[in-house]
């Protein structure tokens, strides 16, 4: 049996269809993935994302430590702000992607993927010795994502006056409401919040969200929402064998200041100099649904592969990310069960605020 989040019983009560995900028992859907997807695009949904790992880092050396470990630069942060970053190995390969929150000058919080948790912890600990930093994995919290165009007004109705702190909260900022850590972040392309709260309060908060008619949403909808929103999934769209430059994540690498040394920097600079061999692009298909591992053919340039692919519930067509040879081209072909189907190259995202953007 897999690990259970503190909301396991709540999922069963909401008729969640439980599946294994990175060793966790989580709902794939609560009846209809399509309805959940649409609920988030048009209303408000809630996801239990407690399988993700929260790591608190505290100490005088924490900024210097993270400036060395992360490809993005935490010196850009002021207290209450968050940053998306890759953590690289010496070869520039992506160990994980994560969100780092600066809470105070000497206190940062990381949220990393579930499947990479053990590897990340080992890596983080292995680099601690030179820095006065203490690391704590938080097993005592629940993480919920409330997402969708109506999420903010429903949260306001739920939290009353204490929600005033949310009114001025900008995207990628975090604050505290009723002792709940809350950030205006998410993985759906919609406005919304992510909450990190004591595990013992989790089920009660979940219940209150359902009373406000937040649609409970499973991993299935989470995947189609993030794909439409143009957001990579670790393990599919990127892993240790590829760099951020090959994963449509060059924007997350902070090259300046030049004197900042971070793990993987040398390898990335070399790759930039020699030319990046692959790129991650978006594809849209009028016919056929592209899937992970299917072959992509780019005329004159060579072959690539679908990293994530799905039916897009919003666009009613096949969409995908594909790792293809570097170069400029507008169309390519995807091989789906022996058929060669045309695909249009799209710069992600595919959907923004519920609308097609290509």
């Amino acid at each position: 049996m897999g690990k259970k989040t503190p909301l396991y019983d709540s999922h069963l009560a909401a008729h969640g269809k439980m599946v294994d995900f990175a060793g966790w028992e989580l709902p794939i859907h609560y009846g209809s993935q399509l309805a959940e997807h649409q609920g988030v695009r048009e209303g408000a949904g809630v996801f239990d994302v407690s399988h993700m790992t929260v790591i608190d880092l505290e100490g005088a050396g924490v900024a210097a430590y993270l400036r060395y470990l992360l490809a993005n630069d935490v010196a850009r942060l002021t207290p209450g702000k968050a940053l998306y970053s890759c953590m690289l190995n010496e070869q520039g390969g992506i160990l994980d992607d994560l969100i780092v929150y600066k809470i105070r000058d000497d206190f940062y919080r990381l949220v990393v993927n579930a499947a990479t948790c053990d590897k990340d912890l080992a890596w983080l600990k292995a680099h601690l010795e030179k820095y006065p930093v203490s690391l704590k994995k938080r097993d005592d919290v629940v993480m919920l994502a409330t997402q969708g165009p109506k999420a903010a007004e429903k949260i306001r109705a739920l939290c009353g006056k204490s929600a005033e702190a949310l009114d001025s909260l900008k995207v990628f900022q975090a604050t505290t409401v009723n002792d709940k850590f809350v950030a205006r972040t998410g993985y759906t392309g919609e406005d919304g919040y992510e909450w990190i709260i004591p595990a013992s309060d989790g089920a009660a908060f979940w219940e209150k969200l359902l009373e406000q008619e937040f649609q409970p949403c499973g991993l299935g909808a989470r995947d189609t929402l993030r794909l439409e929103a143009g957001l990579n999934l670790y393990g599919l769209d990127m892993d240790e064998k590829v760099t951020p430059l090959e994963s449509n994540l060059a924007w997350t690498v902070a090259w300046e200041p030049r004197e900042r040394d971070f793990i993987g920097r040398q390898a990335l600079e070399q790759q930039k100099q020699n030319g990046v061999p692959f790129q991650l692009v978006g594809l849209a298909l009028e016919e056929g649904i592209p899937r992970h591992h299917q072959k992509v053919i780019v005329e004159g340039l060579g072959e690539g592969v679908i990293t994530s692919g799905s039916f897009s519930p919003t666009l009613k067509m096949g969409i995908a990310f594909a790792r293809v040879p570097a170069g400029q081209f507008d169309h390519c072909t995807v091989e789906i069960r022996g058929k060669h189907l045309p695909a249009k190259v799209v710069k992600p995202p595919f959907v923004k605020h519920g609308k097609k953007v290509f």
Partner: protein
Amino acid sequence: MSSIPKTLRYSKTHEWVRKEDDGYTIGITDHAQSMLGDLVYIELPELEGHYENGQECAVVESVKAAADVYCPIAGEVFEINEAIIDNPQLVNEDPYGKGWLFKVRTFDGDMKDLLKPDEYTQQVASEAH
């Protein structure tokens, strides 16, 4: 628990078969549709196509995955359910009724190798563990 009508026969690969006057109607089981989730795309076999027992003959795709459908009884396809091409969710909503996939006429095939409802029920239960 998913529905497993007593009047049908089943394959290990989650197709159902119903004996009709003119042949056999074939679909996917309630359990199969619930495992796949919302269906969004269906590729049906060619009319007049001949299929062996256990041969891949159709594809059902949900939002999250594509699954092959195996012909549970050897024969020739003489009718396909056009309605599910435009509305694949009929298979989710009514897998044994409006969501049928295709019909075959068989030459020498019969249903003796297929699972009886209680056997299929056992198989579904054993997969859950």
